[in-house]
């Protein structure tokens, strides 16, 4: 057999690169459109929004809407903008993410390194829990929160998010720890470490990638949740999404689209930040376990 003498010409390789980059940037532009619309609209005046082109750049950019959305816009009878609700969300998200992540990590640890008969069934049941539609649990959950005295409180919301986040966090950590060498646990046992010591000193410090994935996933889901927020909190206690909804979907009155959009961007900032900063680790973390590829 003889090989055809064909050389890779530098020219065709370059065309291929150009096509790839072209496609990627075109797609990126499409993906960015909604964000672009939100940003430009938030910088326009109301008159310009009504009369102008949605895709046009603002003629006289102004940060007024931003200032108003943050500190002055009226939500119900209080006109202090969304900043208070922003902190509500933070107060809810941080403990909820932390607790569900820690519990998920512990569960994953037990389910992979301390197996007992029936561990698969336990895991299967916990995993299936990821798939239940949340609308179905609102009423009984309200009852339970009432009984526990957690109704209408941030603690209650944290509790709800932890409960319904457990399935996913357990899944993530289980898949990750599945690939974690058993020998390390055995070695630590022989070295004299106990159950928690092994977890704390050996597994947890090596769980960086999966913690990133879990935290990102939980953070976005909890931050963006509306249903639980509107059902289990009220008034000044409400998370960001509820306040945003009150701002943008009030049924009467002049719609201040620029303020709405500015508020929407504020509401999205933390999650955007998380994805931009941790995107690289997200893919890495997915590689490390969440996806079995």
């Amino acid at each position, binding site marked *: 057999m003889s090989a055809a003498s064909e050389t890779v010409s530098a020219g065709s390789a370059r065309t291929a690169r150009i096509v*790839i980059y072209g496609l990627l940037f075109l797609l990126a532009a499409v993906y960015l459109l909604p964000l672009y619309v939100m940003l430009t609209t938030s910088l326009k005046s109301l008159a310009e929004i009504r009369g102008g082109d949605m895709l046009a750049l603002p003629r006289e950019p102004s940060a007024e809407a931003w200032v108003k959305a943050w500190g002055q816009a009226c939500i119900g009878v209080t006109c202090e903008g969304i900043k208070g609700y922003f902190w509500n969300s933070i107060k809810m998200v941080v403990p909820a993410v932390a607790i569900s992540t820690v519990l998920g990590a512990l569960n994953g640890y037990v389910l992979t390194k301390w197996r007992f008969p029936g561990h698969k069934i336990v895991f299967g049941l916990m995993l299936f829990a990821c*798939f239940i539609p949340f609308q179905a649990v609102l009423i009984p959950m309200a009852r339970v929160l009432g009984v526990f005295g957690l109704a209408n409180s941030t603690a209650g919301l944290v509790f709800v998010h932890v409960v319904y986040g457990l399935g996913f966090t357990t899944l993530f950590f289980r898949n990750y720890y599945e690939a974690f060498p058993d020998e390390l646990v055995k070695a630590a046992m022989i070295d004299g470490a106990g159950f928690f010591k092994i977890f704390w000193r050996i597994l947890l410090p090596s769980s960086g990638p999966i913690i990133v994935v879990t935290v990102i996933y939980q953070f976005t889901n909890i931050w963006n949740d509306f249903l639980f927020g509107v059902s289990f909190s009220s008034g000044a206690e409400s998370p960001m*999404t509820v306040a945003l909804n009150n701002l943008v979907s009030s049924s009467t009155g002049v719609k201040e689209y620029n303020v709405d959009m500015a508020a929407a961007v504020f509401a999205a900032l933390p999650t955007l930040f998380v994805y931009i900063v941790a995107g690289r680790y997200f893919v890495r973390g997915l590689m490390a376990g969440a996806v079995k*590829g």
Partner: protein
Amino acid sequence: MTPIEPVPFVTPERPRRTVATRLGTLLPKIVLAPSFAITLVFVYGFILWTVYLSFTRSRILPVYDLVGFDAYYRLWSQPNWYMAIKNLAIFGVLYISLCIAIGLFIAILMDQRIRAEGLLRPIFLYPMALSFVVTGTAWKWFLNPGLGLEKTMQNLGWESFKFDWLINTDMAIYTIVIAGVWQASGFVMAMFLAGLRGIDGEIIKAAQIDGASNTAIYRRIIIPMLRPVFLSAVIVLAHMAIKSYDLVIALTGGGPGNATELPSTFMYSYTFTRSQMAVGSASAVMMLMGITAIIVPYLYSELREKRS
């Protein structure tokens, strides 16, 4: 090497199991127990509760008198419910397949040693970070013929350009697909990218040496090797499709007419706005049965495979 003092060695009096060792073996279960108990009560307990409610005549609030299958008769006599199921079929199939196709396509492009990867990755991922409470308005504008794409194109001089799916009863469900794909395809891209990065480079080299062209390598080797990722992606997307609610409410509110009703919006509206809680519960039960039909075989195969 100077010997260090031998560490005092604890000798148990009896060779039988001590309380300490027994506690040691129980500890993992004790740690797992709260999570498991919570899941049992708050997921499975609530599912049972929902099943129970579906056999009552609950309307505005739960009542607990059993009346048999009344709610199910009502449910299956609702044209809305059929519409919801039909829409879910259209939406589910398109949403899952488009997300996977686009996600895979972008992932493959991104895998070509792209310099700007750090810049592009978050751009494709960010829609996942935004709730539809946030992006709904922007999307509504964008798809609205009077404000968005159609108008922009016409302003740009393409007078005959028409894009009115949002208000077209036959096409509105596809706008939901568009927005949904926009939101989730980046996440799927990340999953595929992770999968691609996990493929052993030597296998690709081997294929090159075997004489495969680049397209043949993708078609015959790489994409088939991503099978587990496909499976994970389908599961993740299927569950998002079934739970999709924000998307519909923000974009069309179920309209025009009931053209974009989905089981999730159906259930919500029957339970909470139409004061037909029993029918809502019945629809929830049907949804759960559908989910079970998809997920349980997956879980079963997934957990079985581990044995070998």
